[in-house]
């Protein structure tokens, strides 16, 4: 043993002269680091109650609970996360996965209590001392646990599509659809917003699993027109998608279409199932639009004999005669209708109720009636010159195009209106012009400015791409005519469309007038209904509310055997029509079964 071995331990003594490293008051002097994952905070106003935090929590520490003062509404479940600190492990996965970034963590870490049940609280609702802490963990911007970008949808370029009526959107491939479906967080906020309350997270899960049969079955539970809805639905669901808060919403509509596209028609019956045993009851449906087809489908499933009466030469209603082919190709519409027929629904075409057959006849022959005749009367602007023969209604033109008629289409056309129908006619005219003249000459004007235009965003973008000139924010004052020719239209700037109560009351700046030249004017400012087929005595018995038949929650009018649905009740929308049809079918079924028991 060396002497050094004895002496060197005494170097410890040099520490006698060091400053102590002891922290004076560790309890109060040591706040957590800026990134510290301390106790949770939640911005309850930003939170949408989607529950992804609950889903990801491996400790089962989070409950979604209703909170006073926060009601469920579209896009917000009204629930807020309650965290059990008897489970939490402060991994912050809930913060990382939070769709709105409302859930964060403070840098506070001291919570002592005698009562073990106290450690359960709803951040942001139960006041805690760390609610105002500035530091703490928030999800770094680049750190994402769910993909934010929507899978790109292959579309035809404007040059290709303008020359024909070929469908623009190509649809997802299986791989793309699986990737897009993978983005869904399965929160289910969309279900409430969907008028048909489709099981959206479930069918998206079916795509993820590649189980299209399950997917199709789920679709048909609430929607018998998936090919149609997958293309032209107004997809309100996407506007409340939890993913949209940081990124693009899930392409719910296109995923639905993908399922229907993947399954051939001849497999439908085996997957969805056949109708129930016949009940012997008969139901007549007037109008083969989405509501009529939907009602007929569900009634047929329930075992009732259904016959649809359609005035036009093909079934589909507005889906066929309103929506242009480039948005909804006829074969896809036919596929949906074919399956409705396959279930035993009889569709009598070219039969206008009120003319070819009276409603009273139907009343006698059938046990119940469902009317869904839609809005097929165009509304006029009623400005001077609007009654000129070269001033058209968009809805008439679209129908004539579908019927194969050669419509009048000059090199320059003016479309008045800012909704989707206006876009449809503008783009239809653009296609006809391209065929006829090789160039597009359509100007679209509407009262609304671009940010509040009712048309879908992609419609606005795509019509611009196709060469349609958009002049939002103008209202027509006069249509200039010269004998049997229309020469143009004068517009004034629209200052505001709605008054402070939100009612339609446009104000104009008369000094700012423009003149647009065009040999044709198409009015597309809304549609009305034609209920002239209802006999007068019935018209009197039916209660109307703001011009529409009043119905109960089963879409029964004031007459027990008469149900109504679709656009005439709900306003123009495919998915609402489908939902109405379904609800009415349930109501009719209850009514008929009640009668059977008597």
């Amino acid at each position, binding site marked *: *043993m060396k002497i*050094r*071995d*004895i002496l*060197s*331990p005494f*170097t*410890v003594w040099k*520490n006698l002269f060091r400053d102590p*490293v002891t922290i004076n008051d560790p309890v109060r002097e040591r706040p*957590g*680091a*800026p*990134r*510290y*994952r301390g106790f949770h905070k939640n911005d309850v106003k930003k939170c949408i109650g989607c529950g*992804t935090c609950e*889903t*990801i929590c*491996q400790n089962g520490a989070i409950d979604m609970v209703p909170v006073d003062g926060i009601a469920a509404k579209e896009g917000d479940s009204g629930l807020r996360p309650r965290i059990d600190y008897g489970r939490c*492990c*402060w*991994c*912050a*996965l809930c913060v*990382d*996965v939070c769709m709105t970034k409302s859930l964060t963590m403070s840098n506070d870490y001291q919570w002592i209590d005698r009562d073990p049940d106290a450690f359960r609280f709803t951040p942001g609702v139960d006041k805690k001392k760390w609610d105002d802490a500035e530091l703490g*963990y928030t999800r*770094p911007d*680049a*750190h*994402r*646990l*769910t*993909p934010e970008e929507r899978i790109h949808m292959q579309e035809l370029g404007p040059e290709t599509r303008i020359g024909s009526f070929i469908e623009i959107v190509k649809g997802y491939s299986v791989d793309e659809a699986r990737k897009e479906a*993978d*983005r*869904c*967080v*399965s929160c289910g906020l969309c279900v409430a917003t969907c008028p048909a309350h489709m099981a959206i997270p479930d069918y998206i*899960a079916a795509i*993820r699993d590649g189980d299209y049969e399950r997917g199709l079955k789920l679709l048909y539970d609430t929607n018998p027109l998936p090919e149609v809805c997958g293309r032209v639905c107004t997809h309100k669901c996407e506007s409340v998608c939890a993913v949209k808060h940081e990124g693009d919403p899930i392409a719910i509509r296109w995923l639905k279409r993908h399922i229907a596209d993947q399954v051939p028609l001849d497999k439908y019956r085996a997957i969805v199932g056949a109708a129930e045993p016949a009940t012997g009851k008969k139901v007549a449906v007037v109008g083969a639009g989405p509501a009529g087809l939907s009602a007929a489908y569900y009634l047929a499933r329930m075992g009732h004999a259904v016959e649809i009466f359609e005035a036009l030469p093909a079934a589909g209603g507005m889906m066929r005669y309103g929506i242009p082919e480039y948005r909804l190709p006829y074969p896809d519409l036919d596929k949906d209708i074919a399956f409705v027929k396959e279930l035993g629904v009889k569709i009598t075409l070219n039969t206008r109720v009120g003319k070819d057959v009276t409603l009273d006849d139907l009343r006698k022959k059938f046990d119940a009636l469902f009317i869904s005749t839609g809005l097929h009367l165009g509304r006029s602007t009623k400005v001077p010159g609007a009654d000129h023969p070269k001033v058209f209604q968009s809805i008439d033109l679209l129908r004539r195009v579908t019927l194969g008629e050669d419509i009048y289409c000059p090199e320059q056309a003016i479309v008045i209106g800012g909704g989707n129908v206006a876009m449809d006619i503008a783009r239809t005219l653009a296609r006809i012009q391209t065929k006829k003249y090789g160039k597009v000459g359509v100007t679209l004007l509407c009262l609304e400015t671009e940010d509040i235009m009712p048309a879908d965003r992609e419609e606005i973008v795509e019509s611009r791409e196709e060469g349609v000139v958009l002049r939002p924010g103008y209202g027509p004052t006069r249509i200039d005519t010269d004998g049997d020719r229309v020469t143009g239209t004068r517009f004034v700037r629209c200052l505001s469309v709605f008054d402070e109560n939100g009612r339609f009351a446009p104000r104009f700046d008369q000094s700012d007038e423009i003149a647009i030249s065009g040999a044709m004017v198409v009015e597309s400012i809304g549609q009305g209904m034609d209920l002239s087929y209802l006999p007068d005595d019935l018209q009197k018995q039916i209660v109307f509310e703001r011009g529409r038949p009043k119905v109960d929650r089963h879409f029964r009018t004031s007459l027990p055997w008469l149900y109504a649905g679709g656009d005439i009740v709900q306003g123009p929308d495919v998915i609402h029509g489908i939902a109405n049809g379904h609800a009415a079918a349930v109501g009719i079924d209850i009514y008929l079964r009640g009668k059977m028991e008597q």
Partner: protein
Amino acid sequence: MALYEPDRSQYPAKKPDGTLDIDLTSGKYLKLWQGPQHPGITGNMSLELTVCGDEVVDCQTHVGYLHRGFEKLMERRTYIQCFPIVCRICVPEPDFNEYCYAAAVEELSGITAPRRADWIRTLILEMGRINSYMMYLGGQAGSLGMGVIGQWTTYVRDLMLDRFEELTGARIYHMFILPGGVRDGLPEGFEKRMEETLREIESTMKDVHEAMFCNAVFKKRAVGLGYIDPALIEPYGVTGPTARAAGVAKDVRKDFPYLVYPELDFEPVTGKDSDAFTRADVRRRDVLLSIDLLRQILAKMPHDGPLMAKIPNVLHWKVPRGETYIRAECSRGEYGYYIVADGSGYPRRVNVRGPSYTHAVALLERLIINVNIADVAGLMVSLHTYPPEIER
């Protein structure tokens, strides 16, 4: 077989059936339990010692006091949900769990973590290694009679925990390395504060060298204690500093380079004498190596670029069928994750190979024979085992 048997030439005698002839009623032998009650370092395991006088003649280890059934729990958690729980498997050095798990899931899913994330991962692993060694050095000195070393090393370890806290947002369970990358980059001014911490550790290591390794008492007690014959290294699955102290330069960082180790300049630390003293010394020099590596990492590390690879939506992350094994060199030896995926959203089987598993049971039972009772704790600590990773 003879090699694997400890030297029992003196006593007790063997019965014809091969078991030891220990008659507790004779008064010659005594059963003595050590643990599981413990104040920290040796961990919750107990030794059922049979002693004769103050010499251990037989030993059975008892583990399982910390068993939580991780491998079972992971089978019913999704791949992302496993990420927060893996670090709990080893308390003093949790990051290797996070890295091995993340790397295994990435490999099975066909994802490559961004390079910058690899640098940060390496940084964290080396920081964790220093932390773990600081626990060890304090424990080793404490178990052989020197309390003050533990006071110092715990202090510098705490400084390192401060760095961990500002980088990862937590002191002990960092939960920072997740499948796909890491959570965030370095905070501002981190390099400077890290350098200060490293300097503090270096100066403490000098003190430790003086006060512990040059200390006559420590030398007297540790030299020759728990000698591991190099021939035992492979049969007993010995890895890490324990193997390196026997002159076998086993170091996963060098043998099977992972992360950014190929870009770092280092040589594994080895020793010759394979006893408790050499093992302590190898670990002390390993701390210095880690300090050097940390400096290299901070100097070479890129400061921009992505930190996360594109990963599937974690809420339904499915991993294709397959099995893999990912290893890393932790402060105690080879740490590894064997993961079997069956194509679902949950791992089919996860097996954690902690170095303590081989060291603390079979090897300890073998080494402890003929050791003085007073040295049992010192021997246990010199193997540097953490019981939670034995039973998981």
